[in-house]
């Protein structure tokens, strides 16, 4: 775990003092370089690589400030030739430009979602899965839950997979709730209903809009350290809320707690990656400080939050 420490310090300092102050910058740079040195000595795993990438961007961002200082000169002395100064000016413009492009893309996506055709074809959205027709009983459960929540009933589909999972997908303004065969096999009726209630709650709470706003925020803060933390934090918060709403829908948290406990047992075994959409039972198996980049909260944290709910 020791190798995570400098990176953590790095992020913490960014939060506490802000990146533009000289003292903070020095600490950040030392922490960043230290982390790079330590991480590089270890075997490259997916997550370390991701962290490395993020740290790289963070370091670049910090460097930007250093060069900005050098560029404008100290005590009236200019350290760089005109060519070098031009290069860094161009770099800053590029950064600004990318942020602008990001914002434009986001606006375009929003327009497409709002004004585009609304049709739902899960097979097209998730080509990695095979879908089969959902049993009528499952449709009925989803419809009654949707009525209870006061929303339009979404489509229901069954994923041809043995891994227990449930998730919701959006195509323009249409929604579909999908459950895997594995979920139906390994949970009892009440627990399946609880998982479905969680998915319905995401729709009731407009979580796709929240997710969209979070992504928009991420783009607006393009490559700024904070952007890597805000989005997952929003996702996690909405996840807890969906659990709470689901408990209210089905009249108590008991079934959802037992479903989550059962799913927790198999979470470390996961091989197949389910879409990072709003999903009752999709787990990322990050540990320790990596959790702050996760879009789904720790399942045990969800269970203990549910245990504190009292439904009148």
């Amino acid at each position, binding site marked *: 775990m020791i190798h995570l420490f400098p990176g953590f310090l790095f992020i913490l300092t960014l939060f506490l003092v802000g990146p533009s102050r000289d003292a903070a910058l020095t600490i950040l740079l030392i922490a960043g370089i230290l982390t790079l040195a330590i991480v590089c000595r270890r075997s490259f795993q997916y997550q370390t690589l991701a962290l490395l990438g993020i740290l790289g961007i963070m370091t670049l961002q910090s460097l930007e400030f250093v060069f900005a200082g050098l560029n404008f000169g100290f005590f009236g002395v200019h350290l760089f030739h005109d060519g070098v100064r031009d290069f860094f000016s161009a770099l800053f413009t590029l950064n600004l430009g990318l942020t602008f492009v990001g914002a434009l893309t986001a606006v375009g996506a929003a327009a497409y979602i709002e004004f585009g055709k609304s049709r739902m074809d899960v097979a097209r959205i998730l080509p990695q899965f095979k879908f*089969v027709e959902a*049993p009528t*009983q499952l449709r009925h459960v989803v419809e009654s839950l949707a009525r209870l929540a006061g929303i339009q009933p979404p489509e229901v589909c*069954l994923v*041809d*997979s*043995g*891994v*227990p999972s449930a998730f919701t997908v959006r195509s323009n303004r249409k929604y579909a709730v999908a459950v895997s*065969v*594995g979920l*139906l*096999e*390994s*949970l009892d009726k009440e627990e399946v209903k609880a998982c479905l209630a969680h998915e319905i709650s995401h729709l009731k709470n407009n979580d796709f809009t929240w997710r969209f706003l979070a992504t928009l925020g991420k783009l607006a803060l393009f490559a700024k350290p904070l952007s890597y933390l805000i989005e997952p934090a929003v996702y996690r918060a909405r996840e807890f809320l969906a659990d709470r709403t689901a408990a209210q829908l089905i009249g108590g948290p008991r079934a959802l707690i037992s479903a989550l406990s*059962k*799913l927790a*047992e*198999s979470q470390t*075994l*996961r*091989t*197949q990656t389910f879409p990072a959409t709003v999903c009752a039972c999709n787990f990322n198996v990050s540990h320790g400080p990596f959790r702050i980049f996760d879009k789904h909260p720790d399942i045990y944290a969800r269970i203990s939050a549910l245990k504190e709910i009292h439904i009148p």
Partner: protein
Amino acid sequence: MKLRLLRPRQHDLQFVLGDLEALALRQLWEASRPLSVREFQERISRTRPVAVTTVATILDRLHQKGVLSRELIKEGGPHYLYSAKLSEAEFKHAVVDDVMGTLLRSFNDVTVTYLADKMAGDKPSDRRVVAKYLKKLRSEGSK
């Protein structure tokens, strides 16, 4: 079948499969009929405690590896019936074939002499028999 030599130091099926995967596959060979996830869980639980969700995930993994085939049953709630693609003997043969194939491709000469040496055993009379047989093979090969 997509198998990987998982743990060279392990014995038996655990050589190529995880502990639970091996246990699940054995249940199928013992039952000699397709089994549902619930049935697997019941049988495995006799040996060690295991959650249904874990069993479902393990079986899906074996299916993806091509060790098991499955059929989706709609009656009585959608569920799978899993069956083994290969019998125990066929499976073990496939593993040995894979391992030996790799060895022969990588270290042909050493592997061949090693095998000949193993087959000859320790008894001098046996070794003479093998030597004679190899000589015969060689003369056939040169013809």
